[in-house]
C-alpha cells in the first residue's frame, strides 16, 4: 500500500489549487476548506486566497489525503516493444518480412498539429532518433494535417499499407476520442481493420488506444524507433 509522501513517509500531503466563483473573503476561504474536506482531505491549510477577479477567488491548498493505493495490484497494459535500433529494425524487416513495410500517417480531423506525426515519420525524426522515412526498409507516407478519416483509409488502401498512424493532439471536449473511434468504425465497415492501427499524441496512452480499438497507443516522448519496432514486431507475429 502506498500513500502520498510529502515530508515523511505516508504523511499523505497533497497540494491543490482551484478557483471558486465568489469574491475574496473569510467566507471564501472557509468555502475552500470545506471544498477540500468534501474531497475527504484532512488538515486542510489554505495557503493563499487570491483575488482572480472581482467575483473569483483562487486558492492554493495543502492537505492530507488518507488515500492508500495497493500498488502491487496495479496492472497497466504497456506497449511491449523490442529494443531494436535503426539498423536492427531494417535487418529484421529484410530477414523476416522480406519486403518493404508500408506505413501511412496523418493528423486527422480538424487537427492541424503535424509536429508529432512529423517527428515520427519525417527524415529528421525526434531527439536524434531518425524518422521512419529514413529507414531503407520502410516506405513512409505522411499525409499531413487536417486529413479526413475516409481520405486516410482510401489512401492506405491504394498504398496497400501495413500500418496506419494517426496523430491526435487537440483533445478539447474529447474531440480526439470521437474522431479516433470513428476511424476504427469506418475501417471495420470497409473491411480494412486487418491493417495495424497506431494512435499517438500527448494525451494518448496504450490503454486508451486499446479501448478505442487501435493496436497500440503512443504518448509524449515517443521515439520513431519504438514505433518502427512495434510495427515490425507486430507484423511478424501476425
Amino acid at each position, binding site marked *: 500500500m502506498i500513500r502520498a509522501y510529502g515530508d515523511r513517509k505516508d504523511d499523505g500531503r497533497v497540494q491543490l*489549487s*482551484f*478557483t471558486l466563483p465568489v469574491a475574496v473573503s473569510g467566507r471564501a476561504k472557509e468555502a475552500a476548506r470545506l471544498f477540500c474536506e468534501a474531497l475527504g482531505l484532512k488538515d486542510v491549510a489554505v495557503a493563499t486566497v*487570491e*483575488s*482572480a*477577479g*472581482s*467575483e*473569483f477567488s*483562487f486558492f492554493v491548498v495543502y492537505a492530507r489525503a488518507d488515500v492508500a493505493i495497493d500498488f502491487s495490484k496495479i496492472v497497466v497494459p504497456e506497449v511491449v516493444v523490442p529494443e531494436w535500433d535503426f539498423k536492427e529494425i531494417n535487418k529484421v524487416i529484410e530477414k523476416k518480412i522480406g519486403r518493404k513495410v508500408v506505413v501511412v500517417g496523418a493528423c486527422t480531423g*480538424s*487537427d*492541424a498539429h*503535424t*509536429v508529432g506525426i*512529423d517527428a515520427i515519420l519525417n527524415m529528421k525524426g525526434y531527439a536524434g532518433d531518425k524518422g521512419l522515412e529514413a529507414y531503407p526498409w520502410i516506405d513512409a507516407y505522411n499525409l*499531413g*494535417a*487536417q486529413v479526413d478519416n475516409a481520405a486516410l483509409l482510401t489512401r492506405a488502401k491504394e498504398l496497400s499499407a501495413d500500418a496506419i498512424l494517426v496523430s491526435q493532439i*487537440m*483533445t*478539447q*471536449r474529447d*474531440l480526439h476520442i470521437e474522431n479516433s473511434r470513428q476511424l476504427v468504425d469506418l475501417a471495420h465497415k470497409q473491411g480494412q481493420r486487418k491493417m495495424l492501427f497506431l494512435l499517438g499524441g*500527448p494525451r494518448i496512452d496504450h490503454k486508451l488506444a486499446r479501448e478505442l480499438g487501435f493496436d497500440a497507443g503512443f504518448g*509524449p516522448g515517443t521515439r520513431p524507433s519504438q514505433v518502427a519496432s512495434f510495427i515490425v514486431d507486430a507484423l511478424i507475429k501476425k
Partner: protein
Amino acid sequence: MYPLPIDSKLVDECRARASQVADGVHRFIDLHTTVSIERTVLRAYGVDGADAEGVPLVNTSVDRYLKSDLLSRGIATFLGRALLRGAKTMQEAAEELAYGAAVDSGESGPSAAEIVGALAPHTEAAFAKLDGAKKKREEDRERLGVGRTPWKYVIVATGNIYDDAEQARAAAQVGADIIAVIRSTAQSLIDYVPYGATTEGYGGTWATQENFRIVRAALDEEGARLGRYLQQVNYSSGLCMPEIAYLAAVERLDMVLNDAMYGILFRDINPRRTLCDQYFSRRMIARSGIVINTGEDNYLTTADAVEKAHTVVTSQFINEALGRRAGLRYEQLGLGHAFEIDKSIEDSLLLEIAQAQLVRQLFPRHPIKWMPATKHKAGDIFWSHRVDGLYDLVGVATEQSIELLGMMTESIHTPLLQDRFCAIKGADYVFTAARHLADEIRWNPEGKIVARARQVLADAHQQLGEVAAEGMFSAVARGAFADVKRPETGGRGLAGVVERGPDYLNPILDVLEGKS
C-alpha cells in the same frame, strides 16, 4: 535600450530585398480578386444576415456570380446595376443578386460611370461608418489610456462567448491589457463567417460579428469601471480574412492577427487566395487604425528555433514591405516573434535575448508582438511557469510592445481562469522588478549575444536575397518558412480567386487605396 552593434547597411539591403519580394507578390495581387474580398465589399455596403441554414447572404450573392463567371467585374458592378434597376436598399440589392429570378449577365444597361454614381452615396456611408468606429475607438483610448508596455495580452478560449466575456472581465480586473478570443478549431477553413452569438466552439469560440460586439461591450464596461482602456483582439486570417477585418473595424477591435503566411503554412490555405485577401484586409485595417499581429512566431514550432531563427526576420521584413504596400503605418505593424528555443540548450536565454533585441531594433517604430514558449512547455506547470518568468524578463528587458503571456498549462489545456491570473500576476512582478533593466545593459561587443544577432541578421539578409530572386510563391513552395512546403496552386480556396477583368469595379477598394 542600448543598441546592438549591427551593420545598418545590411539592414537597408534587407529592406530593399523585401521590397522586391513584395513587388513580386503584388504582380499577382493587383490583378486578382477573391470571393471573400467581394463579400467584404457587400458587407461594407451594409449587407447583412444569413439564411435558415446559417449561410450568410453575402456568400449566396457572391457565389452565384462566381459560378456564373461574372465575378471578374466585381460584385459592386452588379450591386450598382441592381440599385439602378430600382433596389431601394443595399440589402434589397444583395438579396436580388442572391435570390433574383435570373443572374444579371452584366450585359448592356448603365455605363460604368452611372454605376459608380449610383454607388457613391453608399460608398460614402460605408466609410462614414468605418471612420466613425475608428474615431470612437481613438476617443476611448485617449480618454482611458492604454498603459505602459509591454502590454499584457491574454487569451480566452472557452468556446462560449458569454463565458469568454466573463473571463475577459476577470482578466482585466487582475491587470490584463489585451484580451484575445481564440477561434474555434478550423474556423479558418470555412469559407463564410458564422452568424450570431455562439456558445459551442472547440478549443476556442466562433468569430462572429455578434460575438465581437458582446466582448467589446464587456470590455468597454469593464474598462470604464477600471479606468483603463481594454484592447480586444481576434483573427483576421483564414478564408474569411477580409471580412473579419471589416467586422473588426466596425466593431472597434484593437488588434487582429493578420498574416497570410499562417494560413498558408499551418492551415494549408492556398497562397494566391490568402495573399490577395491579406492585401484587401490590410487596406481595411490601415483605414481603421487597427494594429495587426503577424505570425512568424509559429514558424518556430515546426522548424528549429535555433537553426531557423533568421527565417523569422526574413518574413518580418517581407511582412513589413507587404504591409506598407497596403497602407499600414509602422505603428500598425505588430510583427511577431517568439521565445521558442529548446529550453535544454545551454545558453538558450542568450540566443533568445539576441533575437528579441535584434527584432526590436530592426523595427523600432513597430509594436512588436512577443510570443511565449509553447512547444517546449511541459506538463510540469511549476517548471513551465518559471520558463514564462524568464520570457517575461526578456520581454521587458528588450522593450517588447505586445506580450502574449505564457501559460503554465500551455501543454495541457487552453487557459483556465486561474492560469491566466497566475500569468498576469507573474508578469506584473517581473515587469515591476525589472522595469528599467533595458537601460542598464550593454551587451559585450565580443560576446555571444552580439555575435548571434549579427549572424541571424546575416542569414536573413542572405535568405532575402534568395527569396527576392525566386519570388515568394516559389520560396513558399520550396519550404523556405517553417519547414513547410506549400505549392502555389495547392491548398484550400484557390477556386475563390478570380482574375480581375478590365471592367473590374470596386469602389471600396478605390477609396481604401486613395484612388477616389
